[in-house]
């Protein structure tokens, strides 16, 4: 249950399009924050540029709305200056994977103690639907009118390889699991990376035959495969379906972290 006092009620309704998944992700993150019992004065939400990065503007805490792709750099600074603060970063796929890719892998390598929630909607939503590094192959966007020909970035696997302490991936359909994953990431010392596949019916679904919001959610739900099931299929030597992506907790480990509260 989200406490309504975490929202800036005077700013609502927010600017997101009809059926945008970002509002769901804000709900789940705030429910996890509520579960953690963090104080409002000791919580900082940091974001970069993009649809997803409007999120801290609707939350009644101190927040930083920073330059494009540099949200993790600013968040590292906040954490270094005040290690007693709880830092949550909202970021999008264009923000994190494209222009902020280097900041991302180095924040994972340093294992800074914060929670990164990436709202991956497979597209640059705010600027009009250009193809992003996570646009799946064959998907149509304004810069890939004949279908994206490049393979997509797997952000969660990238975070695992770069050394983050907690990595999970869910979709905006799996609200309960997402809330649990964000709460688990907040409890883990070190960088917790939660990739959320969200729907963008306006700029992604409209070009890819997923015009309605339920169709887009249904697409996400039917293409998600639990990581346990994927492992079982691999173990039994059965083929894993091509167009699915794994969801679930990908890694949880105890590497030395930076900026952990003493």
């Amino acid at each position, binding site marked *: 249950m989200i406490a*309504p006092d975490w929202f800036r009620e005077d700013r609502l309704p927010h600017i997101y399009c009809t059926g945008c998944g970002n509002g769901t992700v804000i709900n789940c993150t705030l429910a996890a924050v509520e579960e953690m019992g963090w104080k409002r004065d000791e919580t900082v939400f940091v974001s970069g540029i993009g649809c997803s990065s409007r999120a801290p503007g609707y939350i009644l805490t101190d927040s930083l709305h920073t330059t494009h792709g540099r949200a993790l750099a600013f968040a590292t600074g906040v954490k270094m200056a005040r290690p007693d603060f709880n830092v949550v970063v909202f970021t999008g796929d264009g923000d994190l994977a494209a222009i902020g890719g280097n900041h991302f892998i180095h924040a994972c390598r340093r294992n800074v103690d914060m929670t990164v929630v990436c709202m991956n909607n497979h597209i640059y939503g705010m600027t009009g639907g250009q193809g992003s590094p996570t646009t799946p192959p064959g998907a149509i966007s304004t810069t890939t009118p004949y279908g994206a020909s490049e393979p997509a970035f797997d952000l969660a696997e990238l975070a695992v390889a770069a050394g983050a302490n907690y990595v999970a991936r869910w979709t905006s359909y799996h609200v*309960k699991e997402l809330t649990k994953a964000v709460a688990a990431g907040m409890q883990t010392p070190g960088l917790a990376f939660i990739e959320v596949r969200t729907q963008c019916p306006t700029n992604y679904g409209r070009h890819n035959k997923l015009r309605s919001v339920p169709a887009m959610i249904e697409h996400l739900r039917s293409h998600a495969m639990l990581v346990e099931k994927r492992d079982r299929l691999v173990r039994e030597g059965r083929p894993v379906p091509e167009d699915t992506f794994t969801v679930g907790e990908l890694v949880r480990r105890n590497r030395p972290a930076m900026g952990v509260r003493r």
Partner: protein
Amino acid sequence: MKLVIDESRCKGCNLCVLVCPYGIFREGTELNSRGIVSPVLDRPERCTNCRLQALYGRMLCGVCHMICPDQAIAWVEERPFEPHRVEVEF
């Protein structure tokens, strides 16, 4: 407790229609004052949160509340002796 949709926030995405396990939300047909077709409630007293939230003291299902991207769905306390629509089943 009573289930309400905040018409000033709802954008009519019908995600609640998709997720509600009881089928309480139905797609609406009429435009409201903001030009949005928001869902209508079909016998909301069937909602498990409306009936049992006070008894258990916690949120029970709440999937519509969590998935609503516009924070439009909430449960409010009923005033005493609020009028109910009664349906007689034969």
